């Protein structure tokens, strides 16, 4: 990373003056605590005792044999408390916020996983919690809305714009400018203004730290590739981070192509977007010729975002990571295949990574391995996948 929160030309702090001292205060606090042994002891304890880490690296034997080619390992972030990788970042940020004397957490959420994780941490730390969620997403993910309320959070449906994740982020930022002194904005992905992309990455990097140890234990050598889905990109950067210097390990991010990258109904930022400045950062964004942010689409509420974290934009620029598009149809097929073959129902977000792995594994040889991060569990997606297949079920 270069100076001033930049990853190459990406990143930065493109936010209203009102928020500048808040992000500076956050950066100072993070620098004070990130290497503090007591802070790290507390966080590790939360990870292990509360979230259930380390998460398993599971050898998917039936998938590997059925597909042929590389041995496929699944990093089981779906087994974490609250059912997704989101808890890693949230526990870190909530602990940091507590050290900073903040008593209130606000967050945005798409699929609801980050909202549920934040509401969970707020309950655990005895903090107030407000979650902004696109109205469209509150309908797609009604169960998660109920969970957040059950955990004591207030859920505010956002009706502006496309009423999805980007609008929830905008509204959370607006809320933060109106109340800063007691409030921490617990951003859910490796995006937004510096220092968020770095802080969130560091808390999610536990994923690749564990993968590295686990795969060396299981295979005696590094994997040929690490594959993860990318919206903002937090589970992907967490999965990639400790392999960035190992050039022999391919890093593959799977973007939501929606109905295809040649249609307007897509959320594949690297594949269809261009350079821009939005939500506090310079990166790639889906936008029109005049820089108006484009409405994006994916079956997955969690990947339905028109931008990508600045570190991913940088890894793309330097050719260190590849970003491939995966359509709704491919993701749904993988969702069904992995359920049937391994008895694991993955989140529809994670199914994008699994879909690519299904195409990629057979191109490798049997003495190679690949790791696919199952970022979350798929219970929340059963209704929408059933609907996609023309079947109406009610919870």
């Amino acid at each position, binding site marked *: 990373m270069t100076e001033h929160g930049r990853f190459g030309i990406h990143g930065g702090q493109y936010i*209203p003056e009102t928020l500048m*001292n808040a992000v500076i205060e956050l950066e100072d606090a993070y620098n004070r605590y990130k290497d503090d042994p007591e802070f790290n002891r507390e966080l590790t304890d939360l990870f292990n005792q509360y979230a259930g880490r380390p998460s398993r690296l599971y050898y998917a034997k039936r998938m590997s044999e059925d597909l042929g080619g590389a041995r496929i390992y699944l990093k089981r972030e779906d087994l974490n408390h609250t059912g997704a990788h989101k808890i890693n970042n949230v526990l870190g940020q909530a602990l940091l916020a507590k050290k900073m004397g903040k008593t209130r957490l606000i967050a945005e959420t798409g699929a609801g996983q980050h909202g549920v994780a934040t509401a969970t941490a707020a309950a655990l730390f005895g903090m107030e919690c407000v979650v902004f969620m696109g109205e469209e997403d509150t309908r797609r993910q009604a169960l998660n809305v109920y969970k957040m309320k059950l955990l004591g959070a207030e859920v505010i449906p956002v009706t*502006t*714009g496309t009423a999805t994740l980007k609008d929830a982020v905008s509204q959370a930022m607006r809320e933060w400018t*109106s109340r*800063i002194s007691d409030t921490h904005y617990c951003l859910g992905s490796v995006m937004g203004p510096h220092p968020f992309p770095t802080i969130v990455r560091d808390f999610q990097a536990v994923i690749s730290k564990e993968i590295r140890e686990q795969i060396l234990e299981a295979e005696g050598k590094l994997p040929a590739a690490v594959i993860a889905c990318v919206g903002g990109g937090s589970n992907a950067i967490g999965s990639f981070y400790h392999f960035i210097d190992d050039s022999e390990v391919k890093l593959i991010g799977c973007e939501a192509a929606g109905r295809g990258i040649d249609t307007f109904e897509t959320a594949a930022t690297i594949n269809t977007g261009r350079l821009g400045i*939005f939500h506090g950062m310079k990166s790639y964004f889906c936008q029109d010729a005049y*820089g108006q942010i484009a409405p994006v689409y994916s079956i997955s509420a969690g990947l339905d975002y028109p931008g990508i974290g600045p570190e991913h934009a940088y890894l793309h620029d330097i050719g260190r990571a590849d970003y491939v598009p995966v359509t709704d149809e491919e993701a749904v097929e993988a969702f069904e295949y992995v359920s049937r073959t391994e008895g694991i129902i993955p989140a529809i977000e994670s199914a994008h990574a699994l879909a690519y792995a299904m195409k990629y594994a057979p191109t490798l040889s049997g003495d190679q391995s690949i790791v696919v991060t199952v970022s979350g569990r798929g219970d929340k997606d059963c209704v929408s996948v059933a609907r996609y297949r023309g079947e109406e079920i009610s919870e």
Partner: protein
Amino acid sequence: MSRIKEAFAGKKAFIPFITCGDPNLKVTEQIVLNAVKAGADLIELGIPFSDPTAEGPVIMEADERALNGGVTTNQIFELVRSLRKAVAIPLVFMTYANVVYSYGSEKFMKQASEAGIDGLILPDVPFEEKEEFRSVCHRYGIDLISMIAPTSEGRIARIAREAEGFLYIVSSLGVTGVRSAITSDIGGMVKIVRENTDVPCAVGFGISTPEQAAAMASLSDGAIVGSAIVKLIGQYGEAAAEPAAVFIRTMADAVHSL
């Protein structure tokens, strides 16, 4: 003397904000012409953005109406060129970083300058990020106007020292929009500004009555009013030019009476 300096010379400035293209550019043109006659000293022209993160619901909805009506940056340059035939007061653009960056900063400033724009306000470009835009602004004689917020504290002096055009003092926390009371220590902020620059400063955010406008202008060099005008335009739509002018005159008179 630059047009912006002139606007503040020997008097308090009244600065209305208008979203271009709400409800359409023809009405925007009428409103701007009426605002000049009604006593506006400088006008902020908003180029609508799809996701204006510093705006409250009133301006957000105006941006949405304008974009739904199909307004584009090129059409807004055209509007300014046309306005410049009749308007002598300074005109500044207020928009978001991506509108400029995505258009191409160089191309944007060149067009803006040729059309007759004097300054640019980018609420999502703080002090730390301003250089990449400011260097281009300078090549085309455009002032990049900086903002100061109630949370700026130790940053005020630094921002003021590098200020140009005028300084936009954000009256309160939160986004743009009407407020019943402004409780920030505006006088305290202005004092630090004055100690560090002779660039004039005007207060905006939340001003909706002549009394508030006069109070804010008395503490600084001027008052900026956005949401209250935009709300009126939203109410009257294509018939907004007259009621907007009446409102702007009341506000301008209150500021000029100081």
